[in-house]
């Protein structure tokens, strides 16, 4: 199987007050299609930084990031934005739903960029909400939902444009055990039944257990 995510010798360096901070120091990571990978490591080890590179919202200082066959660094800003809307779904720790929009409108957001009619957008968004089990909450605003429900709406938003890759940054980090459990089950379903390749950052060993593979990041270097 081809590698959907292909990270080769990536370095990420920040310059702060003429001080070089090496956040990622020569990372190589291959994620085959259909894989579910958990990325672990202590705080500040560079997990979010690596995830952002894979999601195409950041660029490496050196090295190459290829996702779904595209060398991310070669795309212009606007081409990269278009590419993201079709290729990756991003799931945040704090859901990041837009408070003034309903669940349905939040889910529709990525589709506003696609050449779809109103009706098609609505139908696709409702389908995504059905997959996460919240079709009956489509008219609710984020503040009317529980944390677990908000995260499920956020997941619906991540999958609505049918991307190949899902990246999740501590998706259960802000949830109680039961809600976390639901989210993890949902992610498993997406991986198994919908063939999504998933890269998930987590601190929680039990969450990491649900993935097929675990990678450890420490001081900018992958250890296992």
């Amino acid at each position: 199987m081809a590698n959907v995510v292909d990270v080769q010798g990536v370095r990420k360096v920040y310059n702060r007050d003429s001080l070089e901070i090496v956040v990622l120091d020569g990372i190589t990571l291959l994620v085959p299609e259909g894989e579910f990978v958990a990325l672990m490591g202590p705080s500040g080890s560079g997990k979010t930084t690596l995830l952002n590179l894979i999601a195409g919202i950041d660029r490496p200082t050196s090295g190459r990031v290829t996702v779904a066959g595209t060398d991310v660094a070669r795309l212009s800003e606007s081409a990269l934005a278009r590419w993201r809307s079709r290729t990756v779904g991003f799931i945040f720790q704090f859901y990041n739903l837009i408070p003034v929009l309903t669940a349905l409108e939040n889910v529709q957001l990525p589709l506003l960029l696609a050449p779809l009619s109103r009706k098609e957008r609505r139908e696709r968004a409702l389908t995504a909400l059905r997959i996460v089990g919240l079709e009956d909450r489509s008219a609710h605003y984020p503040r009317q939902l529980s944390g677990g429900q908000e995260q499920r709406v956020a997941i619906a938003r991540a999958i609505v444009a049918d991307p190949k890759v899902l990246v999740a940054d501590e998706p259960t980090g802000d949830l109680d055990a039961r809600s976390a459990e639901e989210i993890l089950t949902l992610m498993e379903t997406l991986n198994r039944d919908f063939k999504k390749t998933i890269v998930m950052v987590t601190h929680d060993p039990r969450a990491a257990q649900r993935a097929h593979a675990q990678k450890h990041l420490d001081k900018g270097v992958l250890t296992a």
Partner: protein
Amino acid sequence: MRHLPYILKHLRRNWVRTGSTVLAMSVCIFLFCTLQTFVRAVTWNLQSASATRLVTRHAVSLVFNMPIAYKERIAAVPGVVRVAKVNWFGGTRRPNDFTEFFPNFAVEAEPYLEIHPEFIVPEDQKKAFLADQRGCLVGRRTIDRFGWKIGGTFQLESFIPPYRVGKPFDFVIDGIFDTDLARYPGTDTSMMFFHYKYLYEMTNQRVGVGTYVVEIGDPHQATAVGRAIDALFENSDAQTKTETEAAFRAGFVSLAGNLAFLLNSIALAVTFTILLVTANTMSMAVRERRTEIAVLKTVGFPSGLVMGLILGESAALGALGGGSGLLFGWGLIRMLPSLPFIGEAVRGFPELGLSPAIGGLGFALALGLGLGAGLIPALLAYRARITDMLRQA
């Protein structure tokens, strides 16, 4: 257009902020429109100044009169076609009560009417007026204002000391003059004219001449003829100052012009304040929404679109503020004449009302303010990097 609901939802969600910003904007646009309308009304009359007319007056001040004998000497200057004596009478219907004021002048009727073709009087009325020592011509606006008729009489008493003779002047309305605004734009028909002779007799032949209106053959010679006239009286007690009618009137208006400048400065200051207020509103809105902007960009919204959404939101604030400001201004300008005190001052203006040009300008100003206020936040959002915004949230 598919993004419009998104913009409106934001405005509705923060309705207190939206409301107060719109209100501030609306006051600003209202002020702008009312002041502009006022300034325009004050300067409107300038348009009617003719290029072939000069006005000669006492060099020191309009308060002083010139000798009657100047007329023949001015008439003899090459380039001069006609000369008419004109004295501003300053009469009121009741002593020192200006509430029912209209401009009134003692004029040398025959040349005056020749020089001013914009005052259109039926031939028979003109004849009657010329033959009647106490006769007068009254403009249509004043006729309509008081419901006067031809043959009617009224009295005026001047507040100017030399013209106060211990009793009011009696007048008979011999004619009504109209104008043709298409041919003579800016012509005021609120004036009243009577015979200089009458003033002269009533004051025991003691008054001089306030101004000489001089018709010239060639408008290009205006400066030269004016200089020639003033040169005639250079060595006499009463030196003269001759200028074009436009310049002469602008002198009157410049007082109003200074007021207009002051009012415009206030409007400008208010506009600038509103720009700051709105810019503050917008940058608060954007700062609060850092994560949201990061999300929009993450799901693939191009930076240009994100910028457009913010500009759209601030332009919408401008449009709402401008629209309500116009409505407010339109209503108030219509009400103005019926207000006590202000109404009296304002009623004398021809053409009072919110013109489409000023209204359009006001609305454009509101839109511009909105866009201007949103520009910097929008640019910041355009340039902001997703990772930084997520980290700082």
